């Protein structure tokens, strides 16, 4: 094998076998052997195959095995809106929609919170959600989001959630809405909600 760093430097990025062959000026079998070796050393991951074209993702750094984090869970359950993660979040331990929803609220990011509405379709353990939200002092935000999700999405389990007595809070700091259709939810939970009707173009059914 030629100097490994030199090869990786040339190849870094997304390749098919043909583009890799061309970049390295090597024959097909030699390129496949090389990519296979690099894959064993964790510099290459593959996707596709079968009917689709096989793609090789090649990096100068080793690609470590991942455990799913907040972005993975939200992207898994949000069919219309996918998030581009701006940091790599991984949780080594139990992590599901309940934990991801609370983490999403804590990011204070508009897109993350909007995409996380879909998680309500997959909440199984409501007691756990209540406990986690209480620990982080955000139960009213969870409740308000649940009501918004019920308003704009289908197939959400019906639950009777009650607010905790607390002062007014913002779902996203200093970012209220002027939309009337959300006002009753705001009043019930004492939470200023940051969404407008246009934000739910993908899902609103009311």
């Amino acid at each position, binding site marked *: 094998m030629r100097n490994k760093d030199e090869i990786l430097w040339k190849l870094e990025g997304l390749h098919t076998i043909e583009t890799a062959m061309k970049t390295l000026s090597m024959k097909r079998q030699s390129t496949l052997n090389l990519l296979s070796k690099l894959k064993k050393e964790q510099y290459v991951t593959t996707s596709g195959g079968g009917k689709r074209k096989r793609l090789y993702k090649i990096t100068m750094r080793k690609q*470590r095995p991942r455990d799913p984090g907040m972005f993975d869970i939200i992207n898994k359950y949000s069919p219309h809106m996918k998030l581009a993660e701006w*940091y*790599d*979040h991984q949780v080594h331990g139990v992590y599901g929609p309940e934990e991801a929803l609370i983490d999403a609220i804590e990011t204070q990011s508009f897109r993350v919170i909007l995409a996380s509405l879909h998680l309500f379709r997959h909440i199984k353990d409501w007691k756990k959600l209540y406990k986690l939200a209480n620990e982080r002092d955000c139960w009213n935000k969870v409740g308000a989001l649940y009501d918004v999700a019920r308003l704009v999405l289908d197939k959400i389990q019906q639950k009777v959630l009650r607010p905790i007595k607390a002062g007014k809070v913002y779902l996203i700091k200093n970012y209220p809405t002027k939309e009337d259709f959300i006002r009753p939810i705001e009043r019930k939970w004492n939470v200023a909600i940051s969404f407008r009707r246009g934000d739910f173009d993908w899902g609103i059914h009311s």
Partner: protein
Amino acid sequence: MITYNDQQNLFHIISTNLKKNIRCFAFGGTAMIFYGYKDETKDVDFLFEHEEERAEFTRVLEKLGFRESSPFKVYIPEKLRDPHRPKMYSSETARFDLFVKKIFHTLLSPRMSEDVYAIHEFKDVHTLKVHVLRKEHLVILKSVTERERDFEDIRTIVEKEKNFDWQYLVDEVLWQYQNGDTWVLLDTIKMLHELRKYVFVEQKYLKQLTDKLSTKPKAATRKNR
């Protein structure tokens, strides 16, 4: 030496023994392993925001058989006089360098704490939340710690990164200087001079730092040190 798998297992064991949630910032070899720059490291470098968090962490380390060790063979004497030198804990296989609030004179800046490369949560009853600093911060901190192999690590990072943001690094160094850390400027300039023997670094970045040397830092007060 600790490998990636050792590190994951060790952090998981630590998290199972914690009595409260802990947040810390990883830099040095640990962060490089998370990034995938290298496979093993001699030591685990953590920065804590609060002394209580470090105390809880060291309690667990002692429970796991780690003993406090002397930093004298690891850091140069000039660094050892600093009140923010690390507490070190060692076993036969691993060593922890544990800092609180500052890494010598270098503060945990708002950018360092908010703009991280990764967050790894090791969950059990309580959580060990490890924030992995950005590569530019790793280079700055490796310039500051000046241990054996630190320069080699800097070279590894810079040589493997096509998109290394030198302006980001310069801005962070200048922020640290403005907030009372005079060492970081000198250490980074020294590192950049050495690094330019191996990799191309535009002169304009070095110039921004050397120009700053002639001005006194605004907030260099006793309190900050």
